[in-house]
């Protein structure tokens, strides 16, 4: 297993290089322009100068390698400096950081600034989703076609089939406009330092977390239920019961463990999406996390931001897929990779 992990990690490097190149080509080819959002009163010559100063007109290959060098070498050094207070990174001079077109500031700083609210909101909603989904899926499967199962199915499919831009606005209209219980605008500058500020943070998180959590729970609980159903019919379950094991042990130890494979896949696959933020929910509640950063960058033709965020996303995807593969082996020792 260890050899396998190491081999996969080494293999990940060319994979990521290839992925980053493909993303770069796609982002560069897409016909958006960093000056598109400027007012039309700004004349074309000035726009051309702006593009020139951003380096948009360099050959694609040059731009790619410039970006790659900064991404794998300079930026990690800056990150280390930032964390440990060292000074190993080259000093700030033109071309020593990945610079966003819109803000003219280092992309990494933007990402770090967005991380807290994204992890708070999207991360919590994911955990909430899993906490709801697993018991829901297990009980639904165990009591297949019971009232609980029917209700669970109905609610989870409702949660999955209604888009978040609608549930978000519905929640705002009910809880923020009519009842005035919760704020409709998320305050990213809020700092939790005592109980009262925690309550404020909690209140502003409820709506986005529930909207996203419902969506996540719906999806995961469907996989959990289906997989449990498959396993409940297996011979080994009968054997376990015949051995005289308690019903709880049979279901929660034997069946659950064997049912986790597709569920683990789905959960692991969506963890990178947590870091990617949630474009629509963030927009509806003005959370302004990574998702909003990405969508604004896409709309503004901000290639360095799109490229960097997508690349970090790709790294996380590769890592978490590896993690899922390793977990398969843990859950089912018969799965071997070597």
């Amino acid at each position, binding site marked *: 297993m260890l050899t396998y992990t190491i081999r996969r990690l080494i293999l990940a490097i060319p994979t990521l290089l290839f992925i980053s190149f493909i993303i770069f080509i796609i982002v560069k080819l897409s016909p958006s322009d960093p000056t598109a959002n400027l007012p039309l009163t700004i004349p074309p010559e000035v726009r051309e100068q702006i593009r020139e100063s951003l380096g948009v007109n360099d050959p694609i290959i040059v731009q790619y390698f410039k970006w790659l060098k900064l991404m794998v070498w300079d930026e990690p050094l800056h990150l280390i400096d930032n964390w440990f207070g060292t000074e190993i990174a080259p000093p700030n001079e033109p071309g020593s950081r990945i610079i966003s077109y819109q803000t003219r500031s280092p992309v990494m700083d933007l990402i770090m600034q967005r991380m807290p609210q994204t992890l708070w909101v999207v991360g919590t909603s994911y955990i909430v989703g899993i906490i709801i989904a697993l018991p829901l899926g297990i009980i639904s499967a165990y009591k297949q076609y019971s009232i609980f199962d029917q209700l669970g*199915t109905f609610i989870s499919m409702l949660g999955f089939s*209604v888009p978040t831009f609608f549930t978000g606005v519905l929640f705002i209209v009910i809880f923020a406009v009519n009842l005035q219980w919760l704020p409709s605008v998320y305050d990213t500058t809020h700092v939790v330092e005592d109980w009262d500020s925690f309550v404020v943070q909690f209140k502003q998180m409820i709506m986005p977390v529930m909207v996203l959590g419902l969506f996540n729970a719906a999806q995961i609980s469907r996989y959990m239920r289906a997989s449990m159903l498959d396993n409940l019919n297996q011979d080994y379950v009968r054997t376990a019961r015949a051995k005289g094991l308690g019903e709880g042990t049979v279901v929660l130890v034997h069946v659950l463990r064997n049912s986790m494979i*597709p569920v683990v896949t789905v959960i692991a*696959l969506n963890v990178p999406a947590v870091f990617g933020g949630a474009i629509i929910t963030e927009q509806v509640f003005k959370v302004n996390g990574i998702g909003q950063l990405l969508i604004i960058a896409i709309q503004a033709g901000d290639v360095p931001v799109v490229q960097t965020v997508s690349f970090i996303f790709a790294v996380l*995807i590769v890592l978490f897929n590896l993690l899922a593969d390793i977990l398969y082996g843990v859950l089912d020792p018969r799965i071997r990779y070597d």
Partner: protein
Amino acid sequence: MTDPDRPGQPLMTSGATPAGAAPVTDPAEPTVSRTIQERPPRNQWFDVWDQFKTHKGALFGLGFFVFALAFILIGPLIWTVDPQFADIRARNSNHMLACFRAGGGEGAWFEAVRSCFANPVEFSRANPGLFLKLSWAHPLGTDQLGRDMLARLMTGGQTSIAVGLTAMLLALFFGTLIGVLAGYFRRLDGVLMRVTDLFLAIPLLPLLLVIIMLFRDQLRSAFGPEGGIFVLIVVVIGLTSWMQTARVVRGDVLALKEREFVLAARSIGTTSTNMIGRHILPNVMSAIMVSATLGIANAIITESALSFLGLGFPSDFPTWGRILFDGTDWLSSYPERVIWPGVLISLTVLSVNYIGDGLRDALDPRIRGR
């Protein structure tokens, strides 16, 4: 061990051998051979149908799905209002159910509702305090331009269901193919899973912009302006949503591959094609079914999310997702504009889900026939 809630008692396997334990025979065969003694031979699909019929949810699902298809396909032939036509004078009309909001005391309420249904135009004129604008010309009301909601829901449904089904099938096909190949053939695993990683990592919107730029003109000349964008969106949604299915299927296959019945089948020299077709695929069916049911919902929602982000279908090309999105702003004043498309999307997704459940049970020989 008996569970009263579970019909069919799947665990009491005696005569019939489950697919997993009897790799050499066709999974459906034992059931058929047993029924032969009682009745003349019949197609195995009759048995599937028999089992399917016992699943109430599935029957409801099928019923609603047929109704939805009739609504979107036959509906426009009966309700021939042009969904594009903006009847400016009738804009912002309410749907007829708003009649139930008619005021009046206990007894007067019935009378008010009755007169409202009988002559809605007159009723809304006579009761300006209710702020109603009703007419049988637009039973579900109109939007802010006066376009008939009923007609828009019908044409919108055609697009939504078509997008949902095609994108789902596309995703399912690629997902299953890649998942099975990667899980079954170890040599392909690395390559295929890295391709999956690649697709997971590509940001959807720039990809869409690139594809629109590169292929729109060709598709427009080949399929017409609306057909072109339809093909584009279906392909993009299909191409960007197969990865999860692939990963899930691969995970299942990896586990199945080590099971005794597969080892047994391999030991007697079953070819890979047979192995996949007869032993692997039937056993990953439940994961695929879940993917399929989630896939339709996912496609419909992705399409509406594209509208939210300003991409997707042109505005004069309604889809359920788009109608819902447009209606969201009117949530508090005209709730019907979100209720109808919302209900249609949810019920369609729910019905597909139940059909999937029923099919899964019906296709499982361990359950069928008991």
